[in-house]
């Protein structure tokens, strides 16, 4: 008997495509023959819009790229502009940036952990991870005044200093977060059904990962020790003590483990940074108030940072005016997503969903 090949559209309205991913899937029974990701449903023109706005206003658009790791997006852009216009950043501002970027990495991975649970049919971990994320968001709101689109990192520093009540809340968070994290991890880690769903699924060998220029936790789970924070340290990453978690598993389980280890390392960084926080200016006084609008740059600059999803690069070209000539964004989630077909070919439908969830795409960033 001949088996019919059916073609199914997964998404863009599908509960587990993390937003608006559309997958054109060829199925033979339950087996996936090929999956072609189709993107562009969340395109908001961030790169082009940036050409019509002042350098300082563009952080607003960067916020909306990766909406679960916003601080990282702002940071990449702001650093590119600072490099272009040769702007000094006070020491305290750099430490503050690092503090929030790492907190944001934890928050982003928590969102990932919860949604991964949902994709596998576990409802409960989602609530626990979002409960923890909520505490981080409260810290962010306390500082920046917003819960999602912070617009906190400004060119030449940060917009606000820490408020007085930050200290108590922060310590409270740091104190029990690692135990809470262990608790959340224990829901997955030893669960036999979970292991069965993750181990050996979505194999991504290092050569393939490199050829697709995959970065971030996905690459590190394939056994390649590559992290911008170590390879070319920015901010003060060379002044803090942390490890890059690497796993040789190459599968979904390895990606799961790497992300949880990364949260622990980020917590380690956050603790050190908060201890080292110097007093002083939090913003370059030249670029405060009306100075914000007078940022000019000529030439080009490229800065790469390690966002929660991988290498986030921003390329800014200035023509000497107050607005950038061109802003180009190298989005890690976009690059990671390109390997989907390679990873899900020949697996089952359920494995495809699990694999996409461990790639952790965020579509604000993929479509830009």
């Amino acid at each position, binding site marked *: 008997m001949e088996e019919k090949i059916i073609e199914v559209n997964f998404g863009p309205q599908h509960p587990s495509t993390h937003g608006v991913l559309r997958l054109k899937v060829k199925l033979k029974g339950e087996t996936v023959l090929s999956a072609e990701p189709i993107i562009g449903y969340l395109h908001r023109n961030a790169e082009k819009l940036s050409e019509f706005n002042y350098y300082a206003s563009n952080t607003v658009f960067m*916020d909306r790229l990766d909406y679960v790791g916003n601080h990282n997006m702002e940071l990449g852009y702001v650093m590119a502009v600072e490099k272009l216009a040769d702007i000094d950043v006070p020491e305290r501002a750099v430490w503050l940036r690092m503090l929030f970027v790492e907190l944001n990495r934890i928050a982003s991975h928590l969102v990932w952990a919860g949604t991964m649970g949902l994709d596998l049919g576990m409802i409960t971990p989602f609530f626990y991870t979002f*409960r923890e994320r909520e505490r981080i968001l409260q810290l962010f709101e*306390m500082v920046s005044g917003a819960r999602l689109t912070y617009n906190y990192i400004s060119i030449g520093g940060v917009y606000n200093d820490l408020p007085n009540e930050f200290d108590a809340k922060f310590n409270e968070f740091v104190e029990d977060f690692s135990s809470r994290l262990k608790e959340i991890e224990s829901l997955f880690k*030893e*669960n*036999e059904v979970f292991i069965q769903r993750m181990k050996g699924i979505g194999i991504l060998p290092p050569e393939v990962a490199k050829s697709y220029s995959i970065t971030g936790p996905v690459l590190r789970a394939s056994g390649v020790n590559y992290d911008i924070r170590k390879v070319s340290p920015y901010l003060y990453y060379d002044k803090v003590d942390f490890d890059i978690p690497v796993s040789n598993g190459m599968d979904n389980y390895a990606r799961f483990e790497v992300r949880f280890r990364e949260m622990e390392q980020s917590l380690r960084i956050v603790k050190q940074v908060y201890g080292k926080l110097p007093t002083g200016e939090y913003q370059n006084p030249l670029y405060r108030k009306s100075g914000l609008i007078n940022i000019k740059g000529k030439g080009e600059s490229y800065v790469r940072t390690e966002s929660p999803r991988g290498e986030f690069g921003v390329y800014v070209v200035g023509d000497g005016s107050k607005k950038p000539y061109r802003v180009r964004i190298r989005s890690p989630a976009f690059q990671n997503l390109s390997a989907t077909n390679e990873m899900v070919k020949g697996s089952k439908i359920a494995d495809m969903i699990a694999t996409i969830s461990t790639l952790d795409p965020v579509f604000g960033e993929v479509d830009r």
Partner: protein
Amino acid sequence: MVKGILKGMFVVLKHSRRKPVTVQYPEEAIPWHTKRFRGRVILNLDTCIGCSLCSQICPNESDHMVYYDYENGKNRKKIYPAVNIGTCTYCGLCQAVCPTGSIRLSNDGTLASFGKDFDYLPDRLSRTEEELKHHD
């Protein structure tokens, strides 16, 4: 064989003894509501000098300058910012750029209204935080 499953179930069961973290918003106040919360834009007409920096930096062009007949001595052309609340993203850049601190974002996040006039002209912007408690 089922040790991990039982362990997971035990962790989940342990949570039944913990207190819910839900905040029932309209009845309960949000406990983490901070002073810096970026809500409705407000304008101090008396200190605004009409420099139009806020309308320049606004990324969505929701902040724009309009003529408004109000004399404060420093604003000779009598142009004041108006904000289209429909497109405003509450990014706070107008507050950051304002040299006199006239335009800023209040704590008020309850912006629902029955009207469709999203363009808040200077008279509607110029509320103090006290006034915002009784909604217009």
